[in-house]
């Protein structure tokens, strides 16, 4: 299947304002605790003592805005016992709520935390790429809301041709598990996956 949709995230210009997260929440009217798009804050650093006895810090921080990556190899679709989790021709991974049993197995499996359980309706929900907006020729709510123009969407082949193929930086998981349709322009302080030099400091938000 060619022409799959994906997101491009430019970490060099993201200010961590979370407008994308809020726009997403507003557009899909998500309840407390359910956030289809989230912004991970990854920071680290320490004090370094110079030979002359002075101290300097090398603190760093950067943001990663992440939603569902509508992966080429979506583990949620693979493990779902009901086929409620399915992938459309254009690559969008969606939940068919009338089939979902709310077992939350996809939530265990997805390394991006994309499928999220909605307690009110008892089924899984997730980013649907604002497919209704796409049909109207509009951008997804998160992309439209970004004031820094850090977030774009498009056909993944074009995004990769233009911006490269990087899809894994800390604190994201290795890309080979699900082959996410995601392109990242890394921040100049970006650490490689599995790095222990920094840590996710807003785990309750992601």
């Amino acid at each position, binding site marked *: 299947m060619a022409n799959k949709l994906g997101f491009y995230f430019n970490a060099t210009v993201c200010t961590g304002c979370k407008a994308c997260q809020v726009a997403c929440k507003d557009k899909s009217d998500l309840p407390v605790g359910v956030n289809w798009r*989230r912004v*991970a804050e990854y920071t680290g650093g320490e004090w370094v003592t110079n030979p002359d006895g002075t101290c300097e810090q090398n603190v760093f921080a950067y943001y990663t805005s*992440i939603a569902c990556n509508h992966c080429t190899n979506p*583990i949620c*679709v*693979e*493990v*779902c*016992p*009901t*086929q*409620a989790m399915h992938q459309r021709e254009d690559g969008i991974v969606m939940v068919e709520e*009338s*089939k*979902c*049993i*709310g*077992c*939350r*197995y996809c939530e*265990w*499996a*997805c*390394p*991006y*935390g994309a499928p999220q*359980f909605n*307690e009110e*309706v*008892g*089924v*899984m929900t997730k980013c649907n790429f604002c497919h209704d907006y796409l049909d109207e020729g509009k951008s997804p709510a998160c992309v439209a809301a970004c004031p820094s123009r850090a977030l774009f969407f498009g056909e993944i082949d074009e995004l990769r041709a233009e911006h490269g193929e990087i899809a894994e930086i800390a*604190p*994201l*998981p*290795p890309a080979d*598990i699900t082959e996410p349709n995601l392109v990242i322009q890394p921040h100049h302080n970006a650490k490689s996956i*599995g790095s*222990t030099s920094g840590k*996710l400091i807003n785990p309750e938000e*992601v």
Partner: protein
Amino acid sequence: MQANEWSLIIFTTVMQMAVGSFVILGGVHFFATRRYGDQAADALSDRALLAIGPVVILAMLVTFLHLGNPLNAPQAISNLGSSWLSREVALAVVFTIGGAIFALMQWRKISTLTVRSTVGLVVAAIGLLLVWAMAQVYLLPTVPAWNSPATIVTFFITTLLLGSLAVGSAFVITYQYLRSKGTLPNTDTQFDILSTTLRWIVLISLVLLGIQFVVIPLYLANLAEQGSEAALASISLILDEGGALFALRLILLFVGAGIFSIFMYRTATSENRTHITGYLAFSAFAFVLISEILGRFLFYESMMRIGL
């Protein structure tokens, strides 16, 4: 992220116990039939077989508590092509129905012994496949604490260990009950079956206990070696936060499957000490059951996913 799911703890432990009981009971019945004939073999094992039924039904019902939308439950077998969870559910349903058919045939003595044995063998095989599928469900590449051969080995140890000790307890209770009622046919033969069964169950338990005590340190060492943030967090959840429960689990397992079993091996052959054998069999079963539930609790507690 933690998956503190009591319904899953009960379902997996109890279903594995049911499969194990079915398999062990089948083995006991096979050897008892060869030595004493099928009528003598049926006396103790038929009642034990019927006891598995309610246990399986309880396990199946508990799973509904895990679902956010139980009304859609029949959809759970719609993805047999790629989802181990779907396969697990399907095999659990087939095992339940197959077990019920076999129990009915055995209870009412429907058809010949050969046909019944064949049905029993098929149901036992489905049960073991079910345990295999249960383990596969947890082999997620995104959860290091679960994605280990130890998950498969431990599930089968739970199956056979709880199955053996449950059958042992059921046999002693049935033997004492039938003897006190005076309806036990040929007491000497039945006692022979009882003591031989118990002694084999002790040997099986000791072997499984040995394997478990090798697998646990290997599993933890392997997890530590992986060194990922999720793997280390899982170890901490088992050894630090869950440390007291983990220690209790190991002690209960050792005392139940080890010490009580060894005493039972000694008392099993003495007919006037059946009541002591009964206490030992039941204590061993209870200790190991609690240990296995604690172990399964820690298994779910240790769930840490890589990534976000």
